[in-house]
């Protein structure tokens, strides 16, 4: 980070200095531990359907105090199901944060933007801090913001694909036009991709598969932490211009005016 600069973002009245969020779709205790200890995560998502268990290794018991739980509505195929799952999360003691995930395609797991907007509208009115997972579309993002979303979570690539920022140009549009934290979720496969997203100006990155399927989970979690910090520092420092064509003379065309 830049020395002397406190860099944090606010969500739901809470301040976060870590821009790494752990997704927990592919879940293990090792992953949760690594995310917190090696990646410094201050927020962890949790599939409510996964917490809906009597099993002794319930993920809820593994989240330490001080870490914000972000329950997600995975399994919901429409707005009504997402709303029911969010309310169930509250009943289970998961707090008021909710990541709305509405997917009605079991092959690619792509989010349904229109159902997500409907669910966001209902849940925001019920006092939830709503973080919707969405396909990066500016119109949908505006509708989500108007519906009361606390952040926008566009996907980089399909869940689990590890393909990185395939939707980069459309995420950039959201960064430029939407006055909410933009958090890239899904598809980030390498620390370099997380760094790239942070250089663009996203507020945070959510990662799951890339770490969960790494050979060394703690090491990969640590790599992501460093990459996210590097990208954020670069963004704050102000990246130089990228010259697309030709070179740029140090004496520009209008330099003669100073002669």
């Amino acid at each position: 980070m830049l020395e002397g600069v406190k860099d944090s973002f606010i969500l739901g009245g809470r301040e976060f200095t870590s821009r790494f969020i752990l997704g927990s779709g592919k879940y293990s205790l090792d992953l949760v531990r690594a995310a917190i200890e090696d990646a410094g995560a201050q927020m962890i998502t949790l599939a409510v359907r996964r917490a809906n268990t009597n099993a002794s290794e319930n993920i809820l018991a593994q989240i330490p105090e001080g870490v914000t739980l972000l329950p997600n509505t995975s399994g919901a195929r429409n707005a009504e199901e997402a709303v029911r799952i969010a309310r169930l999360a509250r009943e289970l003691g998961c707090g008021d944060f909710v990541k709305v995930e509405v997917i009605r395609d079991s092959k690619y797991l792509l989010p349904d933007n229109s159902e997500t907007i409907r669910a966001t509208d209902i849940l925001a009115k019920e006092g939830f801090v709503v973080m919707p997972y969405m396909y990066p579309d500016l119109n949908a993002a505006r509708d989500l913001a108007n519906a009361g979303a606390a952040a926008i979570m566009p996907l980089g690539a399909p869940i689990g694909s590890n393909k990185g920022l395939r939707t980069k140009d459309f995420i950039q549009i959201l960064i430029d036009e939407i006055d909410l934290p933009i958090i890239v979720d899904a598809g980030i496969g390498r620390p370099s991709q997380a760094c790239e997203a942070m250089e663009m100006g996203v507020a945070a990155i959510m990662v799951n598969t890339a770490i969960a399927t790494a050979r060394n989970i703690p090491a990969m979690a640590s790599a992501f932490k460093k990459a996210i910090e590097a990208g954020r520092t670069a963004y704050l420092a102000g990246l130089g211009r990228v010259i697309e064509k030709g070179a740029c003379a140090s004496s520009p065309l209008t330099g003669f005016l100073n002669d």
Partner: protein
Amino acid sequence: MAYLPDMEILMESTIMEQVLARREEYDYRRYVAEDIRVALSKDNRTLEDFGALLSPAAMPFLEEIALKAREETRKHFGNSIYMFTPLYLANYCENSCVYCGFNRCQKIRRAQLKAEEIEREMRSIADTGLEEILLLTGESRKMSDVHYIGEACTIARRFFKMVGLEVYPMNTQDYAYLRECGADYVTVFQETYDSNTYETLHPDGRKRVFPYRLNAQERALRGGMRGVGFGALLGLDDFKKDAFATGTHAWLLQRKYPQAEISFSCPRLRPVTNNGVIGGSLLHESELLQVILAYRLLMPFAGITVSTREHAHFRDNVTGIAATKISAGVSTGIGGHQECQEETGDDQFEIADTRSVSEVYSAMKERGLQPVMNDYVYV
């Protein structure tokens, strides 16, 4: 094999025609090594790639295919393995399927659990820690009608988070009723997708109506079931063609109903006494593994169950590669899940893996896998 008067016909659905046509065209002898390499190099595999992976040309590549399958399984499921057990509610049956222990001509003890017995069985199963149950009956609408099954689902909802059904095919409205009662998914084994062989193996009873059985999954989805399961009894006919048809069936239905959760089972025909009718052949474990791997690569997001027809050694190893669901504490008779309680009805098939829930749970953990009791919310 004409439809019976009370059987719903899906007039506009072309799924069956497509499945049977593709099965007929499928010639696994024409695939070569290059087809396997192409299939393995892709992210999204087609039915043509699936056909190659099921062919004899794939056998020399089994290890590479397994590596790819494991990678896909990890991407979609992490290291999670879902656990469940079947509960046979009744073994009354009006069919005379040649290969089945419940065949109505078999002289076995017939039984059906009453509501209070269902509750006791379920409580015993729930005490083992399981949160998902699969309910089965023989095919007897007279003895085990839809309301009986519905009542069992309602009881099951009190003890379990996920309720599956493997019962006789029914109409859309019956599936909708059972969904309201608490059922989440439906599995139907087509046994074989060759209609001539099917006719030979099912001499009478409602099960004889081949198209009604084949379209069961589509009716279940229309009735609101979250997910459907597919399977052929491999070995009844040409297993490559039957596996190909099974995968094709699932693939086509998922394209038509994108929200459907798809799963495969891979029952393998085991030796049947007094069998003079079954003309197929028994699969080797390597061939069963090939089928499982091919299902995984065709539909990386589909669940794959390996049952207790297989030995512990096979089940433990395949769950580390491509299977994502495993049964434990299994009894295929009627009753018998409670301690000191004998079964009242005889078994459907012989169990090769008799391990308890805790034994299977431990075995999964020892292999670095994460046994999951529930990953579902009924909404």
